């Protein structure tokens, strides 16, 4: 590859939206409206194709956040309490409430745009659980991305979106974020986007920890493998304060293919049991008292449900089963009329399969491959590997400003969802301590951030100037793995084995091994300690040095190189924060064997910041306000 032929493209905009998933689409939809009123430009950059990018690429079978406030179904406060309890007290009430008070509007828009939502005989949405509604969501992302693209089109030449551009890192002038740099994964083009405000919404991080399947099944992560830590890296490198980097998420899902369990637990009222058929939520109920007050709250926090299951496995009581057969049979048995019961059975069967086919097709394939009919036999469930995702029951992300009317004193600094770095906003998996936003809440948070970012652009109208020297230096850094490969690959008989460089795939495997064995991955039962974490951090420093020697043979590998640099920084902020919080608060996510209990003085946020000036990490404990 001739590096001299790499064109440099500079794009100027006012608001730059990074990512193409639910949060980014929400931001584009909202920002376009306000930008049009004020003659501003909005530009969105996606590493994939918006039609099927982000975590909703495959579709979804439910919208997990809908309050129904106008129908009197729930209140914002009730939702905030639910989220806070699920996260063992660690949540920003102002951020969660801000999303919750707007989310119904987003869902009503989805329906008008064409998303089929299940309705009962009276025309009301069908609830899966209290906050969840059922959808025919195979094309959820296609629909939402079409709305976002059409919103950008309304801006005429002031609206644009770029696909297949991989964003590496922020462009900074002093302490202000003024854009982003990246490259096309399809043609030899280096991109610099200049902007007055930047919104980071590039998703969570997968493949930081070693997955349970390491053959072909490596790709069958629960959250998508293409969400590779870009958001966290971006805000960290911009010097923004991060929060809850220790609060990983370990989902319990159908084993191996990671099909969803929500419909089974909530809609079909299924139970999970050990191999003997015992419901461990009942037999181990006493354990929950140790985690009071959260252990006593209903529903039981996700991490504690995980924990009781892990205790069963430790006791040798596995496999763990979702009793799908019993659940279906019980629902059918409630219907006395034989013909009606048969019709119900058919309906339940169809609903069960759709739940997988809408969002995790591989689980349907898994059932077919194992000759499993859910109405006849149970299926194994298991705890997945850890993920970084603040839109679900994890919380890691940037520390952002809350809204003026809800945020207590120091939680508000001018613009909703702005990070502590001037001009840089975060939404979706990129913003922390506002868990359980899911698809609809991520879209909604994108809207909130998009509007606020337009207000920032209005207040900071001066044109952004980036010097040619700065652009040249960024380009050299971005393309370095290509240059290293070109210089050294001829030295050995195998381009993947060379003492002068490391390829991104082996780099990723090394990271996953460190995280799994030292930072409490799946293979060690999610247990770790000061000594293990300190050792892991030591090995990570070698990795950081070797990252300078990543090599890429083509544009695809160049993307993989940078994805794994992103993952490595997500890993480091995680280890440092798990070390900092000297207690165990989410025993089903990770367990500190040296501090096995929850402590009152850690009823607080554990934040961190990497200082771009000094390269030092600062750990910050912040009160729950």
């Amino acid at each position, binding site marked *: 590859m001739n590096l001299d032929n790499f064109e440099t493209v500079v794009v100027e905009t006012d608001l730059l939206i990074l990512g193409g998933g639910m949060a980014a689409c929400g931001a584009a939809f909202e920002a376009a409206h306000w930008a049009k009123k004020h003659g501003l430009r909005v530009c969105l950059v996606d590493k994939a194709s918006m039609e099927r*990018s982000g975590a909703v690429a495959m579709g979804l079978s439910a919208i997990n956040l809908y309050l129904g406030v106008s129908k009197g179904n729930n209140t914002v406060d009730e939702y905030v309490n639910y989220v806070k309890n699920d996260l063992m007290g660690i949540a920003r009430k102002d951020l969660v409430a801000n999303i919750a008070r707007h989310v119904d509007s987003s869902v009503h828009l989805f329906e008008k745009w064409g998303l089929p939502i299940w309705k009962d005989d009276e025309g009301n949405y069908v609830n899966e659980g209290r906050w969840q509604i059922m959808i025919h969501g195979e094309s959820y992302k296609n629909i939402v991305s079409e709305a976002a693209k059409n919103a950008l089109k309304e801006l005429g030449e002031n609206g644009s979106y770029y696909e297949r551009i991989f964003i590496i890192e922020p462009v900074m002038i002093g302490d202000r974020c003024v854009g982003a740099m990246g490259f096309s994964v399809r043609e030899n083009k280096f991109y610099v986007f200049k902007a007055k405000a930047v919104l980071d919404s590039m998703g969570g991080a997968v493949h930081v920890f070693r997955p349970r399947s390491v053959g072909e099944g490596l790709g069958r992560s629960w959250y998508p493998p293409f969400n590779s830590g870009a958001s966290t890296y971006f805000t960290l490198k911009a010097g923004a304060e991060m929060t809850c980097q220790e609060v990983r998420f370990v989902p319990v899902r159908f084993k191996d293919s990671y099909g969803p369990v929500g419909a089974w637990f909530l809609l079909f009222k299924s139970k999970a049991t050990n191999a003997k058929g015992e419901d461990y939520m009942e037999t181990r109920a006493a354990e929950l008292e140790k985690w009071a007050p959260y252990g006593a709250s209903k529903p039981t926090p996700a991490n504690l449900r995980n924990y009781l299951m892990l205790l069963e496995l430790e006791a040798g009581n596995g496999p763990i089963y979702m009793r799908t057969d019993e659940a279906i049979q019980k629902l059918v048995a409630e219907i006395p009329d034989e013909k009606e019961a048969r019709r119900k059975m058919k309906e339940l069967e169809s609903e069960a399969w759709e739940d997988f086919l809408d969002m995790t097709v591989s689980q349907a394939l898994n059932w077919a491959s194992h000759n499993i009919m859910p109405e006849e036999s149970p299926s194994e469930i298991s705890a997945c590997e850890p993920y970084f995702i603040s839109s679900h029951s994890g919380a890691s992300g940037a520390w952002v400003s809350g809204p003026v009317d809800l945020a207590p004193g120091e939680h508000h600094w001018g613009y909703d969802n702005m990070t502590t770095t001037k001009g840089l906003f975060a939404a979706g998996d990129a913003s922390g301590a506002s868990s359980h936003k899911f698809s609809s809440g991520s879209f909604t948070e994108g809207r909130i951030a998009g509007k606020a970012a337009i207000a920032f652009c209005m207040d900071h109208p001066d044109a952004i100037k980036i010097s040619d020297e700065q652009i040249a230096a960024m380009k050299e850094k971005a393309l370095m793995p290509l240059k290293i490969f070109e210089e050294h690959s001829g030295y050995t008989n195998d381009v993947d084995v060379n003492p002068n460089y490391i390829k991104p795939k082996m780099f990723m495997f090394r990271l996953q091994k460190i995280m799994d064995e030292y930072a409490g991955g799946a293979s060690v039962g999610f247990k770790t300690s000061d000594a293990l974490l300190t050792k892991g951090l030591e090995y990570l420093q070698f990795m950081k040095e070797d990252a300078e020697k990543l090599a890429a043979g083509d544009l695809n590998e160049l993307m993989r190189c940078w994805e794994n640099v992103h993952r490595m920084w997500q890993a480091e902020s995680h280890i440092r924060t798990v070390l900092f919080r000297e207690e165990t608060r989410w025993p089903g996510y990770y367990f500190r064997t040296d501090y096995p209990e929850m402590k009152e003085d850690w009823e607080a946020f554990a934040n961190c910041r990497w200082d771009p000036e000094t390269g030092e990490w600062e750990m910050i404990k912040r009160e729950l306000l």
Partner: protein
Amino acid sequence: MFVWITNQEIMPSFVITEKCDGCKAQDRTACQYICPNDLMVLDTTSNKAYNRAVDMCWECYSCVKICPTQAIEIRGYADFMPLGGVVQPLRSTDSIMWAVRFRNKMVKRFKFPIRTTPEGSIEPDAGFSTGTDDLKSTVLRTEPDSL
């Protein structure tokens, strides 16, 4: 009409050589356009598409659904799925049909709606109006109407 496609044991998402025409009528292949992980590549010598990193495949079926010649299928991850199961979709503009074939040859078929409006027809405001022009207010686009 759903035509059954025979299973071939190659990789998570695999291309049936005979059926792939490299999307010759278009400027790029459909699978290359859609793959969220940038895995599908067109081999310019054979003019056939292929998945370049099967262990990075999420089995999201985006390529399977979009392929104009139905040349792409999924063979379940070999590290935990026994051979013989097939799940194959046929997606139209308003619904999707699925054929599920079990290892024991049993077949189940399902059809689900996917969209209630014509493709390309979305008007962002969806008929809702926005109650304020104030950029600093907490009111979002289409609110309070859409709430």
